[in-house]
Protein backbone atom coordinates (compact mmCIF):
# COMPACT_ATOMS: atom_id res chain seq x y z
CA UNK A 1 0.00 0.00 0.00
CA UNK A 2 1.31 3.40 -0.91
CA UNK A 3 1.71 5.77 2.02
CA UNK A 4 -0.25 9.01 1.96
CA UNK A 5 2.63 10.95 3.38
CA UNK A 6 6.25 9.95 3.37
CA UNK A 7 9.05 11.77 5.08
CA UNK A 8 12.74 11.05 4.83
CA UNK A 9 15.11 12.56 7.36
CA UNK A 10 18.75 12.15 8.37
CA UNK A 11 19.26 9.64 11.15
CA UNK A 12 19.81 12.26 13.78
CA UNK A 13 17.67 12.77 16.84
CA UNK A 14 17.68 16.51 16.11
CA UNK A 15 15.25 15.87 13.24
CA UNK A 16 12.75 13.99 15.35
CA UNK A 17 11.09 17.28 16.20
CA UNK A 18 10.24 17.69 12.52
CA UNK A 19 8.59 14.30 12.64
CA UNK A 20 6.65 15.22 15.73
CA UNK A 21 5.46 18.50 14.24
CA UNK A 22 4.38 16.77 11.03
CA UNK A 23 2.51 14.15 13.00
CA UNK A 24 0.65 16.76 14.99
CA UNK A 25 -0.26 18.65 11.87
CA UNK A 26 -1.57 15.55 10.08
CA UNK A 27 -3.49 14.24 13.05
CA UNK A 28 -5.16 17.59 13.58
CA UNK A 29 -6.55 17.41 10.04
CA UNK A 30 -7.92 13.92 10.67
CA UNK A 31 -10.14 15.05 13.50
CA UNK A 32 -8.19 13.53 16.33
CA UNK A 33 -8.80 15.06 19.72
CA UNK A 34 -6.01 17.16 21.13
CA UNK A 35 -5.31 14.49 23.74
CA UNK A 36 -4.89 11.93 20.95
CA UNK A 37 -2.63 14.33 19.13
CA UNK A 38 -0.48 14.82 22.18
CA UNK A 39 -0.27 11.04 22.63
CA UNK A 40 0.71 10.59 18.99
CA UNK A 41 3.40 13.20 19.31
CA UNK A 42 4.95 11.35 22.22
CA UNK A 43 4.51 7.97 20.52
CA UNK A 44 6.27 9.09 17.35
CA UNK A 45 9.14 10.49 19.38
CA UNK A 46 9.34 7.29 21.34
CA UNK A 47 9.28 5.13 18.20
CA UNK A 48 12.07 7.21 16.67
CA UNK A 49 14.10 6.85 19.83
CA UNK A 50 13.69 3.08 19.50
CA UNK A 51 14.96 2.78 15.94
CA UNK A 52 17.54 5.57 15.78
CA UNK A 53 20.28 3.96 17.90
CA UNK A 54 20.26 0.94 15.56
CA UNK A 55 20.41 2.93 12.34
CA UNK A 56 23.32 2.49 9.96
CA UNK A 57 25.64 5.45 9.67
CA UNK A 58 24.58 7.86 6.96
CA UNK A 59 21.27 6.15 6.27
CA UNK A 60 17.81 7.70 6.37
CA UNK A 61 15.03 7.72 8.85
CA UNK A 62 11.92 7.05 6.81
CA UNK A 63 8.52 7.82 8.18
CA UNK A 64 5.36 6.75 6.39
CA UNK A 65 1.89 7.89 7.26
CA UNK A 66 -1.19 5.94 6.20
CA UNK A 67 -4.23 8.07 6.74
CA UNK A 68 -7.83 6.94 7.01
CA UNK A 69 -10.71 8.85 8.52
CA UNK A 70 -10.28 8.63 12.27
CA UNK A 71 -7.24 6.41 12.01
CA UNK A 72 -3.58 6.92 11.34
CA UNK A 73 -0.78 4.38 10.94
CA UNK A 74 2.77 5.54 11.22
CA UNK A 75 5.80 3.49 10.32
CA UNK A 76 9.19 4.72 11.43
CA UNK A 77 11.99 2.80 9.75
CA UNK A 78 15.77 2.81 9.47
CA UNK A 79 18.15 0.51 7.66
CA UNK A 80 20.12 -1.39 10.20
CA UNK A 81 22.72 -4.13 10.15
CA UNK A 82 22.17 -5.16 13.71
CA UNK A 83 19.01 -3.73 15.23
CA UNK A 84 18.44 -3.57 18.91
CA UNK A 85 14.87 -4.86 19.12
CA UNK A 86 12.87 -3.34 21.95
CA UNK A 87 12.07 -5.46 24.95
CA UNK A 88 8.37 -6.01 25.28
CA UNK A 89 8.45 -5.32 28.99
CA UNK A 90 10.79 -2.37 28.59
CA UNK A 91 9.73 1.12 29.53
CA UNK A 92 9.77 2.52 25.99
CA UNK A 93 7.60 -0.28 24.69
CA UNK A 94 5.15 0.09 27.55
CA UNK A 95 4.85 3.78 26.80
CA UNK A 96 4.23 3.11 23.12
CA UNK A 97 1.60 0.47 23.64
CA UNK A 98 -0.14 2.54 26.27
CA UNK A 99 -0.33 5.56 23.97
CA UNK A 100 -1.43 3.86 20.77
CA UNK A 101 -4.15 1.50 19.66
CA UNK A 102 -1.68 -0.95 18.17
CA UNK A 103 2.09 -1.19 17.98
CA UNK A 104 4.41 -3.62 16.25
CA UNK A 105 8.04 -3.89 15.25
CA UNK A 106 9.63 -5.72 12.38
CA UNK A 107 13.09 -6.45 11.03
CA UNK A 108 13.15 -7.54 7.41
CA UNK A 109 15.83 -7.24 4.72
CA UNK A 110 17.94 -5.01 6.88
CA UNK A 111 15.12 -2.60 7.63
CA UNK A 112 14.14 -2.12 11.23
CA UNK A 113 10.75 -0.51 11.67
CA UNK A 114 8.25 0.35 14.34
CA UNK A 115 4.63 0.74 13.29
CA UNK A 116 2.01 2.35 15.42
CA UNK A 117 -1.68 2.77 14.76
CA UNK A 118 -4.02 5.06 16.52
CA UNK A 119 -7.76 5.50 16.27
CA UNK A 120 -9.37 8.78 17.06
CA UNK A 121 -11.38 8.96 20.25
CA UNK A 122 -14.13 10.78 18.36
CA UNK A 123 -15.00 7.86 16.08
CA UNK A 124 -14.54 5.23 18.75
Amino acid at each position, binding site marked *: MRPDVELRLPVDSAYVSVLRATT*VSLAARLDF*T*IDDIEDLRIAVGEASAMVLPSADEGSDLVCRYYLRPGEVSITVAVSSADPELPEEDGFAWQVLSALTTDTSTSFENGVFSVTLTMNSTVNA
Partner: protein
Amino acid sequence: MSSETPATGGQPEPTPLSAMKQASADLFIALDNPDATDAERSVARDGLVRLHLPLVEHCARRFRNRGEPFEDLVQVGTIGLIKSVDRFDTDRGVEFSTYATPTIIGEIKRYFRDKGWAIRVPRRLQELRMQISAATADLTQGLGRSPTPRELAERIGCTVEEIIEGLESNNAYATLSLDAGDDHDDSASRLLDSLGTDDDQLEHVEIRESIKPLLDALDPREKRILLLRFFKNMTQSQIAEEIGVSQMHVSRLLTRTLAQLRESLQETR
Protein backbone atom coordinates in the same frame (compact mmCIF):
# COMPACT_ATOMS: atom_id res chain seq x y z
CA MET B 1 -6.34 48.29 47.91
CA SER B 2 -5.67 50.09 51.14
CA SER B 3 -2.13 51.07 51.75
CA GLU B 4 -1.84 49.48 55.17
CA THR B 5 -2.98 45.91 54.78
CA PRO B 6 -0.19 44.50 52.66
CA ALA B 7 2.58 45.86 54.82
CA THR B 8 1.55 43.97 57.91
CA GLY B 9 -1.02 41.59 56.49
CA GLY B 10 -0.70 38.23 58.16
CA GLN B 11 2.77 38.95 59.48
CA PRO B 12 3.36 37.82 63.03
CA GLU B 13 5.58 40.82 63.70
CA PRO B 14 4.30 42.81 66.62
CA THR B 15 5.52 46.03 64.98
CA PRO B 16 2.55 48.38 65.06
CA LEU B 17 1.62 49.87 61.75
CA SER B 18 2.54 53.38 62.76
CA ALA B 19 6.00 52.28 63.90
CA MET B 20 6.49 50.58 60.58
CA LYS B 21 5.42 53.69 58.70
CA GLN B 22 7.66 55.77 60.87
CA ALA B 23 10.63 53.49 60.25
CA SER B 24 9.95 53.64 56.54
CA ALA B 25 9.68 57.41 56.56
CA ASP B 26 12.89 57.78 58.60
CA LEU B 27 14.77 55.57 56.20
CA PHE B 28 13.52 57.57 53.24
CA ILE B 29 14.71 60.75 54.90
CA ALA B 30 18.11 59.14 55.40
CA LEU B 31 18.10 58.01 51.79
CA ASP B 32 17.20 61.44 50.47
CA ASN B 33 19.54 63.33 52.76
CA PRO B 34 21.87 65.23 50.41
CA ASP B 35 24.63 65.25 53.04
CA ALA B 36 24.62 61.50 53.52
CA THR B 37 27.56 59.47 52.29
CA ASP B 38 27.08 56.74 49.76
CA ALA B 39 27.54 54.17 52.48
CA GLU B 40 24.82 55.67 54.65
CA ARG B 41 22.47 55.85 51.70
CA SER B 42 23.18 52.27 50.82
CA VAL B 43 22.39 51.20 54.39
CA ALA B 44 19.12 53.13 54.28
CA ARG B 45 18.20 51.57 50.96
CA ASP B 46 18.93 48.06 52.23
CA GLY B 47 16.90 48.80 55.32
CA LEU B 48 13.94 49.97 53.26
CA VAL B 49 14.02 46.90 51.06
CA ARG B 50 14.22 44.61 54.05
CA LEU B 51 11.46 46.47 55.88
CA HIS B 52 9.06 46.00 53.00
CA LEU B 53 9.88 42.39 52.11
CA PRO B 54 6.64 41.12 53.70
CA LEU B 55 4.78 43.27 51.18
CA VAL B 56 6.48 41.35 48.37
CA GLU B 57 5.51 38.04 49.93
CA HIS B 58 1.96 39.24 50.21
CA CYS B 59 1.88 40.19 46.53
CA ALA B 60 3.60 37.00 45.41
CA ARG B 61 1.12 34.90 47.35
CA ARG B 62 -1.62 36.11 45.03
CA PHE B 63 0.14 34.35 42.17
CA ARG B 64 0.62 31.02 43.80
CA ASN B 65 -0.59 27.81 42.15
CA ARG B 66 0.10 29.14 38.71
CA GLY B 67 2.94 26.79 38.05
CA GLU B 68 5.79 28.98 39.17
CA PRO B 69 7.64 28.35 42.42
CA PHE B 70 6.67 30.80 45.13
CA GLU B 71 10.33 31.58 45.85
CA ASP B 72 10.86 32.69 42.25
CA LEU B 73 7.88 35.01 42.47
CA VAL B 74 9.20 36.51 45.68
CA GLN B 75 12.50 37.03 43.97
CA VAL B 76 11.09 38.91 40.97
CA GLY B 77 8.72 40.77 43.27
CA THR B 78 11.72 41.89 45.29
CA ILE B 79 13.21 43.35 42.13
CA GLY B 80 10.00 45.36 41.82
CA LEU B 81 10.38 46.46 45.42
CA ILE B 82 13.96 47.60 44.85
CA LYS B 83 12.84 49.55 41.80
CA SER B 84 10.09 51.25 43.75
CA VAL B 85 12.46 52.13 46.59
CA ASP B 86 14.73 53.78 44.03
CA ARG B 87 11.92 55.61 42.26
CA PHE B 88 9.73 56.60 45.18
CA ASP B 89 9.25 60.31 45.55
CA THR B 90 8.49 61.29 49.16
CA ASP B 91 7.22 64.70 48.06
CA ARG B 92 4.14 63.14 46.50
CA GLY B 93 2.71 62.53 49.93
CA VAL B 94 1.52 58.98 49.41
CA GLU B 95 2.43 55.95 51.43
CA PHE B 96 5.31 53.94 50.08
CA SER B 97 3.27 50.72 50.04
CA THR B 98 0.64 52.44 47.90
CA TYR B 99 3.32 53.16 45.38
CA ALA B 100 5.21 49.89 45.70
CA THR B 101 2.33 47.41 45.44
CA PRO B 102 1.49 48.02 41.76
CA THR B 103 5.18 48.05 40.88
CA ILE B 104 5.76 44.71 42.58
CA ILE B 105 2.68 43.13 41.07
CA GLY B 106 3.63 44.55 37.70
CA GLU B 107 7.04 42.97 37.96
CA ILE B 108 5.53 39.58 38.81
CA LYS B 109 3.05 39.83 35.96
CA ARG B 110 5.85 40.77 33.61
CA TYR B 111 7.70 37.69 34.76
CA PHE B 112 4.74 35.52 33.79
CA ARG B 113 4.46 37.27 30.45
CA ASP B 114 8.11 37.33 29.45
CA LYS B 115 9.94 34.65 31.31
CA GLY B 116 7.29 31.97 31.17
CA TRP B 117 8.07 31.36 27.55
CA ALA B 118 11.13 29.40 26.65
CA ILE B 119 11.27 31.19 23.31
CA ARG B 120 9.73 34.44 22.24
CA VAL B 121 6.23 33.84 20.99
CA PRO B 122 4.13 36.52 19.30
CA ARG B 123 1.51 38.14 21.45
CA ARG B 124 -1.23 36.88 19.14
CA LEU B 125 -0.18 33.28 19.80
CA GLN B 126 0.19 33.84 23.51
CA GLU B 127 -3.38 35.03 23.62
CA LEU B 128 -4.55 32.25 21.34
CA ARG B 129 -2.92 29.75 23.63
CA MET B 130 -4.89 31.10 26.55
CA GLN B 131 -8.10 30.98 24.51
CA ILE B 132 -7.35 27.42 23.52
CA SER B 133 -6.78 26.27 27.07
CA ALA B 134 -9.97 27.95 28.24
CA ALA B 135 -11.98 26.49 25.35
CA THR B 136 -10.40 23.08 25.85
CA ALA B 137 -11.45 22.96 29.47
CA ASP B 138 -14.93 24.06 28.51
CA LEU B 139 -15.40 21.66 25.62
CA THR B 140 -13.91 18.73 27.52
CA GLN B 141 -16.64 19.19 30.10
CA GLY B 142 -19.35 19.40 27.48
CA LEU B 143 -18.18 16.56 25.22
CA GLY B 144 -16.89 14.18 27.85
CA ARG B 145 -13.65 13.88 25.90
CA SER B 146 -10.97 16.23 24.75
CA PRO B 147 -12.01 18.36 21.76
CA THR B 148 -10.62 18.12 18.24
CA PRO B 149 -8.84 21.09 16.68
CA ARG B 150 -11.86 21.59 14.43
CA GLU B 151 -14.18 21.87 17.42
CA LEU B 152 -11.79 24.30 19.06
CA ALA B 153 -11.61 26.37 15.89
CA GLU B 154 -15.41 26.58 15.74
CA ARG B 155 -15.63 27.60 19.36
CA ILE B 156 -12.93 30.26 19.18
CA GLY B 157 -13.84 31.39 15.70
CA CYS B 158 -10.52 30.87 13.99
CA THR B 159 -9.13 28.39 11.50
CA VAL B 160 -7.87 24.88 12.25
CA GLU B 161 -4.48 26.10 11.02
CA GLU B 162 -4.37 28.68 13.77
CA ILE B 163 -5.32 26.12 16.37
CA ILE B 164 -2.44 23.92 15.27
CA GLU B 165 -0.15 26.90 15.49
CA GLY B 166 -1.45 27.65 18.93
CA LEU B 167 -0.92 24.09 20.07
CA GLU B 168 2.63 24.23 18.75
CA SER B 169 3.28 27.40 20.66
CA ASN B 170 2.15 25.56 23.75
CA ASN B 171 5.41 23.67 23.61
CA ALA B 172 7.30 26.87 24.00
CA TYR B 173 5.59 27.46 27.29
CA ALA B 174 7.57 24.85 29.11
CA THR B 175 9.17 26.75 31.87
CA LEU B 176 9.16 24.33 34.70
CA SER B 177 11.87 21.91 35.47
CA LEU B 178 10.69 18.31 35.36
CA ASP B 179 11.76 18.29 38.94
CA ALA B 180 9.45 21.10 40.02
CA GLY B 181 7.15 20.52 42.93
CA ASP B 182 3.38 20.70 42.76
CA ASP B 183 3.63 23.97 44.61
CA HIS B 184 0.68 23.50 46.91
CA ASP B 185 2.27 25.74 49.45
CA ASP B 186 5.51 27.56 50.03
CA SER B 187 7.41 24.40 50.72
CA ALA B 188 10.31 23.69 48.44
CA SER B 189 9.44 20.04 48.02
CA ARG B 190 10.41 18.60 44.68
CA LEU B 191 9.13 15.64 42.74
CA LEU B 192 12.40 13.88 43.39
CA ASP B 193 11.90 14.23 47.12
CA SER B 194 8.72 12.26 46.90
CA LEU B 195 10.21 9.36 44.97
CA GLY B 196 11.15 6.53 47.25
CA THR B 197 14.21 4.34 46.93
CA ASP B 198 15.61 1.53 49.01
CA ASP B 199 17.87 3.02 51.59
CA ASP B 200 21.16 1.17 51.55
CA GLN B 201 21.86 2.45 55.01
CA LEU B 202 19.01 0.36 56.36
CA GLU B 203 20.78 -2.84 55.43
CA HIS B 204 23.93 -1.53 57.01
CA VAL B 205 22.09 -1.06 60.26
CA GLU B 206 21.28 -4.72 60.33
CA ILE B 207 24.82 -5.75 59.50
CA ARG B 208 26.26 -3.37 62.01
CA GLU B 209 23.99 -4.59 64.73
CA SER B 210 24.71 -8.24 64.08
CA ILE B 211 28.44 -7.73 63.85
CA LYS B 212 28.67 -5.87 67.14
CA PRO B 213 28.47 -8.90 69.46
CA LEU B 214 30.85 -10.79 67.20
CA LEU B 215 33.44 -8.07 67.45
CA ASP B 216 33.05 -8.01 71.20
CA ALA B 217 33.78 -11.72 71.30
CA LEU B 218 37.10 -11.37 69.51
CA ASP B 219 40.30 -11.59 71.50
CA PRO B 220 41.96 -8.24 72.21
CA ARG B 221 44.82 -8.72 69.77
CA GLU B 222 42.54 -9.60 66.84
CA LYS B 223 40.35 -6.67 67.67
CA ARG B 224 43.34 -4.38 67.74
CA ILE B 225 44.55 -5.59 64.37
CA LEU B 226 41.14 -4.97 62.84
CA LEU B 227 41.06 -1.54 64.36
CA LEU B 228 44.49 -0.61 63.04
CA ARG B 229 43.79 -2.01 59.62
CA PHE B 230 40.27 -0.70 58.96
CA PHE B 231 39.91 2.35 61.13
CA LYS B 232 43.43 3.74 61.17
CA ASN B 233 44.03 2.52 57.63
CA MET B 234 47.47 1.18 58.44
CA THR B 235 49.26 -1.27 56.18
CA GLN B 236 49.93 -4.79 57.32
CA SER B 237 53.63 -4.00 57.72
CA GLN B 238 52.85 -0.99 59.89
CA ILE B 239 50.57 -3.13 62.02
CA ALA B 240 53.24 -5.82 62.27
CA GLU B 241 55.66 -3.26 63.61
CA GLU B 242 53.12 -1.84 66.04
CA ILE B 243 52.23 -5.24 67.48
CA GLY B 244 55.63 -6.80 67.20
CA VAL B 245 54.95 -9.75 64.93
CA SER B 246 55.84 -10.45 61.32
CA GLN B 247 53.78 -9.01 58.45
CA MET B 248 52.97 -12.55 57.34
CA HIS B 249 51.52 -13.25 60.71
CA VAL B 250 49.38 -10.13 60.60
CA SER B 251 48.11 -11.18 57.21
CA ARG B 252 47.23 -14.64 58.50
CA LEU B 253 45.54 -13.29 61.61
CA LEU B 254 43.57 -10.78 59.59
CA THR B 255 42.39 -13.37 57.11
CA ARG B 256 41.40 -15.71 59.90
CA THR B 257 39.54 -13.07 61.86
CA LEU B 258 37.63 -11.86 58.83
CA ALA B 259 36.73 -15.41 57.82
CA GLN B 260 35.57 -16.07 61.34
CA LEU B 261 33.43 -12.94 61.42
CA ARG B 262 31.93 -13.68 58.04
CA GLU B 263 31.08 -17.21 59.06
CA SER B 264 29.44 -16.22 62.31
CA LEU B 265 27.52 -13.52 60.51
CA GLN B 266 26.10 -16.07 58.07
CA GLU B 267 25.02 -18.27 60.98
CA THR B 268 23.25 -15.51 62.84
CA ARG B 269 21.31 -14.44 59.77
